[in-house]
Structure formats: C-alpha cells, structure tokens
C-alpha cells in the first residue's frame, strides 16, 4: 500500500520505453524490467531467496510476499504491511509484505505511461484516467471491453498541456510584474525610511533648542512675585463650594450604586435563565434560532467579564460615600479658616519695610526662592499660573515631541515591514490588502492577502472571520490536477496560515490554511471545512509560480 499516485506519472519513463521494449510480462514498468529477464525462474524482488518457476509470473495466484510475481493481475492486491498472515494462504514470518511494484503498468501509447493500483486490474471498470489504453481490463471480466483511447485522450491532454504551458508562461510573466511591483513598493518604503530618518534628525536638534527655551521661560516665571493667594474669605468660599459639590457627587454615587446593584441582580437572573436554557434545550432539535441563541450565550459566557464591584471595590465605595465628618477624609473646617504657612509669613514681612529696601529685599528673596526651588529645597508653588511665554514654549516643545514620536513609530513600522516575510522575492508585498472571493453553496468566501479570511452569508450578509493572517508556511500536497489546471498537484506548496478567527460554537476559533499553487490569475478554487471550523482554501496565484518550480526542483533533487 501507500501513495501509488505519487508514482503514477513517471515522466522520465518515456525516454526508456524504446530501449526497454522487450518481452516484459504484462503490467511491468520499464524500470522493473530487469527483474523479469530470466526465462526459467523468477526471484521475488524483495525476497530474492524465493525463486519461482517463470510460469508462476502472472498466473493470477499470489506467490511472492511482495506481490512481484503478479505485476499484471490483482492476485496480490491484498498485500500490505498489516496483512503478514497470508500471502497465498500460509502465515509467514518477518518477511516484508509491502508491495514491491507501484501498480499495474499501462503503456498508454500515444499518451503518457502510468501505474494503476492493482485493486483496479480486471475489476470491470475502464480506468481511463490512469490507463487510457484500457489494458487494465485485459481479462474482459463480465464482458467489459476497454478500447484504447490514448489517441484522443493524449491529444486532448496535449492540447490542455499546451494551454497550461501558455498559461504557465503568462503566470510567470505576471509574477515578474508582481515582483517588480513589490520591489517598487519596497523601494517606496526604503525612501520613506530615509526621509523619516532625516526628519527625525532635524527634529531631535530642534527639540533640544525648544527644551532650552522652555527651561529659561520657566526659570523666569518661577522668579516672579507671587501674588498673595486670595484672601481667607475666598478660600473658605471655595471650600464651601467644593464641599457642596462633593456632597452632590456623593449622593449621585450612592444613587448610581444602587442602580448598579439592581442591574447586577437582573443580569444574574438573566444569566440564570440562559444557563438553564442552555442546559435544558434539546440540541438534537436543531432549531436554528435556539442554536444561535445558545451559541451567543456561550460566547458571552466565555468572554472575560469585567468584575462589577468586587468586595474591595465596594469597600472603597463605602468609604467614599461616607459623609465627611470629624473623622472623615476632608476636614472642611480647617479649610474654611486657613492657617498661614511659613512662606506666607515670609511674604508678609515686606509690608513693614520702606519701599527701596522692600524692592531690594524683594529681588533678593526672589533669587533665593528660585535658588531654593532649583536646589530642591522648596517646592515650587503649585498655584503659580503659567505665563504666556512658558505656555508657548511648552506647546512648541510638545508639538515637536509628538511629531518626533510619530515619526519614530513610523520608522519602526517601516523597518519592521522591511524585515517581515513577504515570501520569496517579497512577492506578497504586491498583493497585500487585495481580496478575492468565491461563491460556494450558501456562502461567499473572501481571502484578503495577508489580511483575513471571511465567510459571507448570501442569506443575511452576515460576515464571519475565518482567521487572520499569521505566517507564510509550506505544506506537502498530493492532489490530481484537473484538466482545467485548477488544482494543487503534488509537491511542496506555499501556504498562508490564518488563525484566531471567530470562535466556533462547540469548537475552536476558526482558522484557515490557504494553500497556493501557480496560476495565471488570483483565483479562489476551492474551500473545504476539513474539521469543524478548520478551513482550507485552495488558491491559484501567479505569486507562487517560480517558488513552486523551485520546490519541485528541490524535491526532484532529493
């Protein structure tokens, strides 16, 4: 057993066919001809110690443990690594019972030779896809006759192949264009980086100047005489206002809190109803409305819920909501009759001095104060209003800082972008953010290159994200390519992984594996749901054309 298909098309066989055109037994491919040259005995390929009279070859009775004595019949088709028990009939020991031959060899003159699985030999079905010469049904069981159709099939194939070749060369051209586009896009980014770097340099210099300006403006500001902060009467008025306002807020808080508690109760009740609903509904009834509701509820229940008012928070609120009293947070009385601070006393002294001396003192004091502030001895007075100059200097600095930050961010983004994997030759840079769609059943599917994959309902236009782009990867595939060429074929293929789409009811977050194969245009060929909410898209795009060829070469070399 195994993947016979991988070996079905033996491209190079054609060159040997004339050289090996001896009297090979039925079903033997030219590469195995040498095992069948003897005219009197046959040695099983994998167990050459087992020798059979030549008459046992193709006598429709399985003698060799590897089936090599029956290249032209289905007599050994049952052999597999798990059926060591019977070859003909008798249990055998540790002999290798894997089939030695890839299948029944169809010469397919006029087309390409290939192997048909032994299970298909003489089963009454003409397997023209693999065996256009019909030789797999040589025994004509049940009266079946499989005419040789290689001429027409080969012709058709060559026609299609020509188209494929043409299409492939177009695709290769198209890819070149994409790569060129990508290069331009990359260059644009590089230019941008260069510009940004220059700008950033300039801004950094500018920033230094502005910082100095601001410092000086502030220094000046700090030295200014501070007008006496409003009279005791004004402060107590403010305190009174503040007190009233806080009282108002306190009451509002209590009100809002009781409303919150009521809502909490209602939510709990609703969640209770829904929990019971979810437990008790009958999923077998498949009422879409009910299922949707349950699904919605499960999504809701699964989300991280903000804890509404845990105990600690509630205790804080209790504390906040307490009326201010002697023991409370704010002792309003103290504010209504403000005590004078030492600094204030200091300021007051000047009132007793003669004017010239007062000015001298004033200047000295101001210098002293600035000195003290600058040395961290005194705190700058918070109630100092900013002057216009300081404000302007600060704004200018802020603007430059913001611009710098922004530019630095942009620079980072662009730099990261340059390092990001856009596939070979950066080719996906040219496709980024472009989308293609395909109708399939009741949905339209959308693939946005390096963006997200979506399923869009034709019925209600509902959009479900099937994954967000994560990485470029490669997968090994083994598919037949249909005549229109819209298929993955076999070998290593570029694949884009899209993960963490919308959460699936009773399943994982949706994800999509986008497998790419070379084609002339971007086209979504096929969408399948491989497992619940695990999707696979097969997509044709010129973007992977040369890459696929490289992968193929690599494989051939191996």
């Amino acid at each position, binding site marked *: 057993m195994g993947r016979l298909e991988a070996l079905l098309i033996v491209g190079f066989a054609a060159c040997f066919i004339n050289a090996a055109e001896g009297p090979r037994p039925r079903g033997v491919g030219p590469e195995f001809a040498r095992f069948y040259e003897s005219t009197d005995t046959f040695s099983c390929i994998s167990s050459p110690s087992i020798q059979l009279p030549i008459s046992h070859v193709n006598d429709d009775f399985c003698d060799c443990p590897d089936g090599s004595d029956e290249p032209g019949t289905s007599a050994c088709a049952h052999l597999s690594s*798990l059926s060591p028990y019977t070859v003909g009939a008798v249990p055998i020991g540790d002999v290798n019972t894997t089939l030695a031959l890839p299948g029944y060899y169809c010469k397919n003159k006029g087309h390409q030779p290939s192997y048909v699985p032994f299970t298909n030999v003489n089963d009454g079905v003409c397997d023209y896809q693999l065996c256009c010469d019909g030789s797999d049904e040589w025994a004509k069981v049940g009266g079946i006759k499989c005419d040789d159709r290689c001429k027409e099939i080969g012709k058709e194939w060559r026609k299609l192949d020509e188209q494929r070749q043409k299409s492939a060369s177009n695709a290769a051209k198209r890819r070149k264009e994409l790569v060129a586009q990508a290069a331009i896009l990359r260059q644009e980014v590089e230019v941008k980086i260069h510009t940004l770097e220059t700008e950033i340099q300039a801004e950094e210099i500018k920033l230094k100047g502005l910082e100095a300006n601001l410092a000086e403006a502030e220094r000046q500001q700090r030295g200014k005489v501070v007008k006496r902060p409003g009279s005791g009467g004004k402060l107590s008025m403010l305190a009174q206002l503040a007190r009233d306002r806080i009282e108002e807020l306190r009451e509002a808080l209590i009100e809002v809190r009781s409303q919150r508690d009521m809502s909490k109760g209602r939510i709990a009740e609703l969640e209770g109803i829904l929990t019971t609903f979810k437990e008790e509904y009958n999923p077998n009834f498949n009422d879409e409305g009910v299922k949707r509701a349950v699904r919605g509820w499960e999504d809701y229940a699964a989300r991280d819920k903000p804890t509404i008012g845990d105990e600690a928070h509630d205790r804080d609120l209790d504390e906040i909501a307490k009326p201010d009293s002697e023991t409370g947070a704010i002792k309003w009385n103290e504010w209504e009759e403000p005590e004078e601070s030492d600094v204030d006393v200091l300021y007051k002294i000047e009132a007793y001095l003669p004017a010239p001396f007062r000015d001298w003192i004033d200047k000295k004091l101001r210098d002293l104060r600035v000195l003290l502030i600058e040395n961290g001895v005194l705190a700058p007075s918070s109630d100092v209003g900013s002057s216009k100059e300081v404000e302007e200097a600060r704004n200018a600095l802020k603007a430059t800082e913001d611009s710098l930050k922004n530019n630095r961010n942009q620079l980072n983004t662009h730099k990261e972008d340059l390092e990001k994997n856009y596939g070979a030759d950066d080719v996906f840079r040219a496709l980024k953010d472009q989308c293609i769609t395909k109708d399939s059943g009741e949905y339209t599917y959308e693939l946005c290159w390096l963006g997200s994959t979506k399923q869009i309902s034709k019925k209600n236009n509902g959009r479900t994200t099937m994954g967000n782009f994560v990485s470029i990867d490669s997968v090994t595939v083994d598919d037949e390519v249909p005549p229109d060429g819209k298929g993955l074929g076999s070998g290593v293929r570029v694949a884009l992984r899209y993960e963490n789409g919308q959460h699936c009811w009773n399943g994982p977050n949706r994800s999509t594996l986008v497998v790419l194969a070379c084609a002339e245009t971007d086209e979504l060929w096929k969408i399948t749901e491989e497992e619940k909410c695990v999707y696979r898209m097969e997509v044709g795009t010129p973007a992977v054309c040369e890459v696929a060829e490289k992968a193929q070469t690599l494989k051939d070399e191996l």
Partner: protein
Amino acid sequence: MVKHENFKTCEQSGFCKRNRAYADNVATYGNTWASPYTLDPNSVRIRHGYVTGTVLKSLKSGGQAVQLPVKLAFLESGVARVTIDEFKRQQKDIGLRHGSQARKERYNEAAAWALVTDGELDKSFSGEESEEETVVRYGPKQRYRAVIRHDPFSIDFFRDDELHIKINGRGLMNVEHWRAMVVKVEKGKSEKKDPEDGEDESTWWEETFGGNIDSKPRGPESVGMDISFIGYQHVYGIPGHASSLSLKQTRGGPGNYEQPYRLYNSDVFEYEMDSPMTLYGAIPLMQAHRKDSTVGVFWLNAAETWIDIVKQKVSSNPNSLVTGGGTDTETHWFSESGLLDVFVFLGPSPKDVVAQYSELTGYTQLPQQFALGYHQCRWNYVSDEDVKEVDTNFDKNNIPYDVIWLDIEYTDGKKYFTWDPHAFPDPLGMEKQLNDQERKLVVIIDPHIKNVDNYAVVKELKSMSLGVKDKNNKLFEGWCWPGSSHWVDCFNPVTIDWWRSLFTYKSFQGTAPNVFLWNDMNEPSVFNGPETTMPKDNIHHGNWEHRDVHNINGMTFVNATFEALLHRDPAISRRRPFILTRSYYAGSQRLGAMWTGDNLAAWSHLAASIPMILTHNVAGFPFAGADVGGFFGDPSKELLTRWYQAGAFYPFFRAHAHTDTRRREPYLAGDPYKEIITQALRLRYSLLPAWYTTFHSASTTGAPIIQPHYYAHPSDEAGFALDDQFYVGSTGLLAKPVTTAGAESISIYLPPNTLYYDYFTYTIHPGTGSTITIPTPLDKIPLLMRAGHIIPRKDHPRRSSGLMRYDPYTLLITLTPEGTANGDLYIDDGESYDYQEGAFIHRNFTFALNSLSSLDFEDEKQRNKGKKRREYVRQMDRVRVEKIIIVGVPGSWQARKEVRVVEDGEGRGVEMGFERGGAGTANVATVKDPGVRIGRDWRVEF
C-alpha cells in the same frame, strides 16, 4: 445525558401504574387470589384447528359480567395463538367522550401490518372439553398440548408432556372493559384494595404529561396478562433497549431494574446504557431458554407496552419434569389499548422459535449485495463536490466502501424531495461518479412534511388529506427539523399510492437508480409532542387513535417507501429496495435494515452495541447495526479503530457522525490507524460471500445473522448469558470485538468438546468450557474459526463490492479432528429479483474422507430451469475457485505435492503446498488454482 423528565416512568403512565398495582395487590392475596376471569364452558366451541368461547369477567361491584370473546388458533407450524377481544367494543356499543371521531373497537389491524400470514390451521389437531378444562393436542405428531382451564381462565402449554408456559397462572389478567364515566362522590378507602373496583381511577379519563393533555375519549382500556416460563432462567428479546442480551429482572433488588421494559417507540436523545427505557423500535417477541429447550411468546399489540420480569427460584415445581428445583421466569405484559393477542412457540430449539416467528411476520429481506458493504455517513456531506471528494479520497487511499449517505442538509430548507440549489447543483453528476465504481447514494426522507407555501408536496398532502389528524379531526401540525410540519399517514392506502408517485425519477429530480433511502424520525419524532412524539389522541386512517397504532407507525412509513422504491423501475427490471429505518416493529425486517439510533462516541456504547444487535438478531430483525464511531462526540483514534473492527461484524455496517463532530473518514485517521481500519474493512469485504450466504439463509429461515452463544450452543449452560462474542451465521466464525481502551488481551469463552483456530495465525484453541486469552494489539481482531466449516471468501480487494462480482473464490476449510467440514455458498446478481426465478448459484461444500465436493444445494427436481437461471449460470461460468486452504491437516500431508481435481467427469492434477504449523499452530495445506468453476459440480481428492 438522557433527559429522564421527557419520558414517562411506569408511575407516570396511567395503565402501567394500574397494572403494576393490580399485580402488587394480587400478591397480597397470595394463594387465596382468584382471578375474576372465567371461560364459560357453555360457550366453548372446538372447530377445525381452533377453539372459540367467551371469557367472563365478573365485577366486584356486581352487575352483568363483561363478555370477552376468546379465540385460540392452533397452527400447523406448532404455534398457538390466543386472541381476546371485548364484546361491547366489538359491537361498537359504547359512547365516546368529547365528541371524538375515534373508532370504538379495540384495534384489530396490528396483525394486518405485522403478519404476512395467519398461518395454516393444524388439521391434525384434536380437542376435548370437560367441565373444568378444554384440552387441545396439536403440532407435529401432536407433540404439544394446551390445557385451557375454565375457572379461573388460564392456559398451560406442554411440550412432550412437560409444562413450559403458563398464561394467567398468576391471575394478573386484566382487560379494562368499557364503562361510562361517572362522577363519583368520595368514598371511604378500603384496607385491602380490590384490584378491579378499588383501583386508582385518577388516570382513567384524562392524563397529563409534560404539559400535554391526553383526552382519552374511550377511557381505560388496557390489557394485561402474566406469562410464566416454567424452569427457564433466561429470557431474551423484546428489543429495542440498551440492555443485556439475557434480560434482567424489573422489580428492583440488587442488579435489577426498578422499571419494567418499555416498548413505546421514541426519539430518545442521548440514551443511557443498561436501562429498560424505551428506544426507537419495538419487537414484542420474547424467547425463554434453558439447557436444550427454547420457547417463546409474541405479544401482538401496537400500543404502548410494558413488560415486568421476575425470576423465581422454585424448590421443586410439581408441574415441571425438571427435578431438584430451578428457576421460573415470570413475565407480566400490559398494553394501553387494543386486543390481547399472544402467540406461543414451543420450540424446542432457538432455531425453531425464530423460524416459527419469521414464518408469521416474514423473513428478513434479502438485501442487495451493496447493502452488506461499508456505508459512509455523516451529518452532513455539505455539497455534491464534498461527496465527490470523499469518494475520491477513498480510492486514493485504496479503502473500499459501497455507499455514501446524505443527512437532512441536502434538502432545500428541509423540504424533502428537493435539493439545496447552492450546495447540490448537480446531484446527477455526483451520482454518476459514484455509479462509475458501482457505488450508491442514500438520502434521507422523513415522515414530517414542511408546512410552508410554495411546496408542492405539502400542498398535495393537504389537498388530498393524507396527513395524520389531531383529536378534532383537523390536520395535525407539530414541530420537527423543518419547523412547522405535517405527518404523512401511511396507514392510508391512498397515501402509499401518492408516496409512490413522489419517488419516480421524474418526480424526485436529481435521483438516479443508484439512490436509496433512509427513513429517520419515524417513531414519529415530534419535537413539541408528549415524550417527543405524537399526542395519543391523534387520529389515523380508519379513525384509529394514534394510541392504538403508535408502535406500528414507523413500519407503515417504511412500507410506503419500500413500495415507492419497488415501483421506481419498470416491473421487468425491478430491483430490491434498500431502506434504513430508525423505528420498527415486528415485520419491519421484511423492508430493510435498522440501526440503534443516536449513540455516543464512548467505549460503553461500543460495548453495548453488541448485545443490542444480538437481541435484534434473535428477535427476527437481524439486519441491524450501530453507528460506527458513535454519533455524538469525537472518538479517540483507538476507539474509532476498535469500532471499525467491531463494525466489520455488524450485519449493517455504517459509520455516522453528528454535525458538531470533527470529520473522521477512515483515510483521515493517520498512521497506524488508517491502515488498521483499512484491514478491518478489507476483512469485511473478503468475507462478503460468507455474509451474503448468511443473509440468504436469514431470508429463508429467519436464522440470526450474528448468533449469540446460547443460539449456537443451546446445551452449554455456561454461555447462556454471554453477549459479547458471537458467530457469523453458521460459518463457524467466532468474533469477540475489543470494546475497552488499551486492551492488551481478551478472553474468549469456548464451549467444551470443541476446536477452534485463529483466523489469522491458525493457532489451535481447543474448547474446554472455559476461557482462553489472546493478545490484542491494536491491529488484532479477535476472530476464531470453529473446526468443521468451509468458509467462502474473495481475496482480491476492490473499490466496492460490485466490482468483486467476477473475482475468484477462496475456500477456507477448518477440519475437525475427524477430518470433516462443510459449508455453503449462495450467490445471485445481488440486486434484482431474478433469484426468485432461479437465477442463483447455491453450492453445498463437503469435506470428508479426504475429498472435497461441491454439489448443488438444491435437489435436482426442485431446481428452476428457466431462462433467467440459464443466463445467470452462463454469466458466472468463468468464475473459478482460485485457492483452497485447509487448516488442521495431518502432518502426513507434507509429502503430497499434488491433488486430483475432477470436474465434468475429467480429472487432472493440481499443485498443493504444505506448511507445518509448529507449536500450537495447525498444519495448513493450500491447493493452488484448482481452476474449478464455482457454479459447477466438482470434487478434489486429497
């Protein structure tokens, strides 16, 4: 978890509670209980083959005794039938409440649906009547005797003068006669309740369950009877339940059930294991078995039915010839309405009981060959492309399968007979791809018809009035998959004609001849109905209440579909229909296959599937299976693999999965599971000749397709409760599927004085009445061959069974120590009815005295020599035997290199190989390509 609150317990089912209370009350009387039913001696008439009379039910309240006409029929086959009706209802001399349109009689058409014949009356029967009793001798050589006692009425059944079955021996007979509803004033409660007059009347006139009210227009009308099996410790049958093969006691106690076995076809969501709870189908056939004797009863009633089982140890039974005491199994049956109609089978072997039962209710259908292959199902393959891709993937992986299935999503909005235009734009193209490898498609059609505008089917159903009616005689409307729906009433012959018209290729567009059917939800499942089914006061064709016909309803739907499929093709090229049904009744075996419904991907469900399928096999419905892999949930790969290994031995072999599960087609299993599953599938396919021969035998004798130990070894008491190992028909193949996780070995019980060989290794296992242990790595299927059999096989793996048609045969012979073996092979075209005109090959193989011969199974004289036969034989004439493997040959054969083959009077020498077995392993000889043709007489001299 099953939702118990959705289904009734006995206490919640009025008549069940009343009948159990009746039994409890009788028990308080002990020996002093006198049943109020007497057979009026003056009424007794003995005719040719039957006896009639009137049983009188005296009422404690006084007044005229209730007249219950009784008929006892005695059939040539040895079956006795007891039918009890009620005179007043028979005469329609009763009043119905609520102005009901329902019929007044007790339902008397169950036989018309369940039976294919009433049986030939026994002409050699003799009866004599005395004052006390009427005695009837009947059956072959008058081996059987029925003693009908007049007062109280009871019947004892004897075989060879030994008592086997007693009817009303315990006096639990209870026929709830018609009475008018009277509004009574509360009366004092008596200490000891009289079972008739003092009983609980609260459920006589109306019952409520889960918010649904049953209007019960005819009041109480149940029938109950006790049936005792004297000297029998084991009873089997009465499917379907998720229970053991040997039925358990139901009146409490350690290891016993608290509830009776219930038969009320229901859509039980996530049913539980080891439970007497009702399931999807009902076959009221019970067999009782003891060493070398089997008897049985068939309770022909289509209404809700419960069965209590109690096993009584008896120190010594004066009526029984079994000395030294034993066990009696006492059963108590009661149904909500209808006739009391019991068939009694006196054996003496399990084969006889099943044969007699099958003769009455019909043999299992001989299915088309493909139906025995592997079926790939899922809810749902979502598009025609999806189906084609799954099909291609099987081929790419060299895994055989025959049928792919479509669940409800293929339809356009759950409207049956339509296709979803987006997902299935080209159903015929899809069917063609399948047909290219002779594969088939099965689509689902359920009995609920979507109630929506612009849907021709519902429009016709309404305009022609072909649906089930509600209690007010208006078209019944309920909820199922499509939402609001109506239900087709297939009791109506006009419905059947109409249903037939819907299936023509022209009408059901997008179906080709390789499309077959799946009838699901036919219990019927009604999402918003009581117990997820129809209200009992719904009205069917003929004005029968749903209550009367409930358990038969599912079968009538399959019957209509069967008719429809049969008539799709012109009469000259008619092919056998294939239908899978979830709901069934006695007789459904004539129409197709059943499966055990919505199981779970759990080891316990895998294990339970075997006793469940065995029970159906001994109850006359052998074409049974369980969803491989488990319907709900995702099986581990090990469980899935073991399930395939078990499923390869289910008569009906289908994998199925719920829509919320991950895909699990065999080719997705990965290494090493995929290869192991493939081997299990190939084993099934290589043994298809043996399976088909076994099905043929079932279709002519009623024999189980898989046979439990007691059936195959009726004398070996140690194996009577065995229900985890079984034989494939009479091939001698003994399978014991692995049903536990991580099993490194398994024990198999082998009866004394027998000899077995391992199917794969030819290891010798002598049977000694104890268990042997064999290692079971994941790729090992525990499968033995009993010595003395010849098993036909085809060793070339193909993509589908249809493509194996002309492949050569292998004969696998297991020799007894005496050097003998025999077996048979039945072949026909596997699809048409031509076999009924002789177009088949049936060979009898015998190995004795070092000679193997193949002779026609039939006698020369009986053989049909028509055109169809000649054509078929000619067509098959090239099919040969490619090898003969003889296991257990003497060592002296080593010297023989050649055997002599004689065919058509000409002899020739043919090569033979020999392999010495070594320690514990049998010697094996192989005749290589004897070249003999399968349809001809030949012999091989060793």
